[in-house]
């Protein structure tokens, strides 16, 4: 086994067969599950509170032929008089009373009267559907469905390669989830790489190891090994997401519009893998320069902020996916992966932009590993003091 591969496998084993790896792997899953469960329970509970009987007054008898739909949350019940409706309201038999407003004749408005808890705002739409059922009584079902159904738009790229309905989940949801998962894996792994280099210095292993391998081999091995850990995390999360979509898709119709397209996943894995190598090498270089993790965090912050910046500008990118800012961020190595994946969900990204971004990513990754090796060479034996910025410039000439 080549030495780079040996070091990479050593780092991979050291990370994966550890409790810490499982914890980092499970955190997004648990957060996602927890959020889903809490949301589901909340919505269900609210629904239970908010659903129920609503009384109405119909002096004009326009609603005599109205029928409650079986899948509606609200059930509308007629009352002959306002007094009897109010008595039922006070008793709690109904949650509210719909009665004609004072200007009903000219405006057609109705009032909603309630006792304590205001019924859900959807009661208006539900009552509208209840009213429509009266107006459409006697019509064929096909006419009823056509009139009561919402208008649905379908958006398509000019080359018809991609299309989306407005009932589908927004197209950027999957790319956004991918980028969030990647950022979690990226920063966790990159931080760990910085700490791994610091640990090598603290363990006083540096001087022995560099008499077996070159600094560049050591850096390449560490970055590759921990990059593989990050990719494994991403793959596991993607598999979990795919399983969840497959299981829940049949129960939650809107999820059926979500899919993990192979081209998006493949592009994401390649881009993120390269960025992992670049950022990981930067973190390893920082670990070589400093003497403790706190100092390392300070130096690492600018890289972290730059890599996350497309998320800050996500509204701009999503609003104008082919704009100047989006294109620039798509080409700059530290921001390219997140930006390109966000755009890929919205528009057809020109092939040349993807090609240029990939090329720059490869060059950035190679350059970062080389530079990390140089900086490592200067800083590896600095156990008690860090590397000054002036010495960094000299290290490139070494």
């Amino acid at each position, binding site marked *: *086994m080549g*030495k780079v591969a*040996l*070091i990479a496998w*050593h780092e991979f084993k*050291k990370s994966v067969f550890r409790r810490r790896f499982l914890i980092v792997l499970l955190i997004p899953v648990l957060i996602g599950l927890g959020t889903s469960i809490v949301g589901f329970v909340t919505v269900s509970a609210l629904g239970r509170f908010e659903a129920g009987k609503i009384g109405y007054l119909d002096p004009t008898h326009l609603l005599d032929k109205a029928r409650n739909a079986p899948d509606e949350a609200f059930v509308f019940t007629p009352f002959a008089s306002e007094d009897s409706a109010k008595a039922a309201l006070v008793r709690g038999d109904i949650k509210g009373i719909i009665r004609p407003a004072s200007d009903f004749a000219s405006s057609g408005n109705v009032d909603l009267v309630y006792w304590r808890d205001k019924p859900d705002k959807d009661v208006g739409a539900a009552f509208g559907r209840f009213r429509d059922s009266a107006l459409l009584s006697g019509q064929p079902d096909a006419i009823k469905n056509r009139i009561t159904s919402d208008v649905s738009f379908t958006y398509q790229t000019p080359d018809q390669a991609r299309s989306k309905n407005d009932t589908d989940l927004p197209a950027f949801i999957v790319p956004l989830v991918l980028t969030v998962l990647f950022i979690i894996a990226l920063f966790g792994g990159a931080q760990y790489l910085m700490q791994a280099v610091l640990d090598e210095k*603290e*363990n*006083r*292993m540096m*001087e*022995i*190891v*560099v*008499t*077996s*391998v*070159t600094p560049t081999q050591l850096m390449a091995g560490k970055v590759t090994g921990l990059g593989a850990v990050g990719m494994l995390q991403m793959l596991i999360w993607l598999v979990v997401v795919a399983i969840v979509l497959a299981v829940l898709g049949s129960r939650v119709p809107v999820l059926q519009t979500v899919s993990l397209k192979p081209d998006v996943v493949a592009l994401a894995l390649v881009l993120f893998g390269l960025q992992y190598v670049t950022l990981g090498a930067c973190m390893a270089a920082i670990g070589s320069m400093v003497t403790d993790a706190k100092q390392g965090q300070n130096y690492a912050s600018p890289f972290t902020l730059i890599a996350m910046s497309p998320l800050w500008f996500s509204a701009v990118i999503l609003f104008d996916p082919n704009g100047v800012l989006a294109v620039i961020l798509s080409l700059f190595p530290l921001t390219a992966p997140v930006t390109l994946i966000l755009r890929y969900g919205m528009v057809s990204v020109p092939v040349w932009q993807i090609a240029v971004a990939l090329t720059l990513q490869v060059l950035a990754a190679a350059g970062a590993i080389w530079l990390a090796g140089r900086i490592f060479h200067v800083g590896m*034996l600095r*156990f008690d003091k860090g590397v000054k910025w002036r010495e960094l410039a000299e290290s490139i000439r*070494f």
Partner: protein
Amino acid sequence: MDNTTIAVSSLAKAFGKAQAVRDVSFEVVKGEIFGLLGPNGAGKTTTIRIILDIYKPDHGQVSVLGGPMTERKKEHIGYLPEERGLYKDMRVDECVTYLAELKGVPQAEAKKRADGYFERLGLASDKRKKVSEFSKGMQQKVQIITTLLHQPELVIIDEPFSGLDPVNTRLVQDLLLEEHKRGTTIVMSTHQMYQVEEMCDRIVLIDRGVSVLYGGVADIRHKYAENAVRVTAQGPLPALDGAVETSRKGNTHTFTLPKDLSPQALLAKLASAPGLTVESFELALPTMDDIFVKVVSGDGQGAREPGRQVDR
């Protein structure tokens, strides 16, 4: 020279304004045990790191195993620095195997050799423990194993006996001597002068970045020997004209002789003295400790001059 393992010539290295090494030159012959000596801050560690290509020299030439250092040659070199460690969170056997694999030893072979060393050094029953669970002395022994496991041609070892009790010191010493018998060249940096006397064939003494003493241990001791003898005898000593007794311990007397009185003449006089039984008679050679202090404190023969080799 064909049998030269290391050749260092006029080495110089500065770190900023600090001149760590000014002018160091020496050669290490294949198969010998070579002592690299000097007070703290003399430039020994910097010299070692230059030899191992961890640092590049500002001036001078270094040749290792027949030429400039290459990555391939590193697999034939075992190095144990003074500031050393192990991967604390790894199992001992895995740590040793991994470091051997980095030296090009196949995994199966590395495990086999490691087990042999663990048995030899009394670590077999603990080899599956984490390094952090080992005492300092046990970790030292593991570090020695990692230095020797890949059967290097050249071993450079800084303070090999540091932190070891006498039993383990003897163990490590025996290991190094076995390597020496195998033909391994050993460069040893140590402050334990008695170890230098016991083990080293030749030495170089570096002080303030300059090599100030260089040559065979026996030759150096003879060179720094004053005209002195050590005699152990029972009975009354005769009058010894000109000889001055400089120390006495029980029946052992140390005499400094005048220039006109040779040790042989004194022996003849003692042998013929009535009532005196001479039990031992030897030239009182100075210890390496004495020579070290003398040279470093500036009292040594052959004043320090940059680039001058005092002895070869």
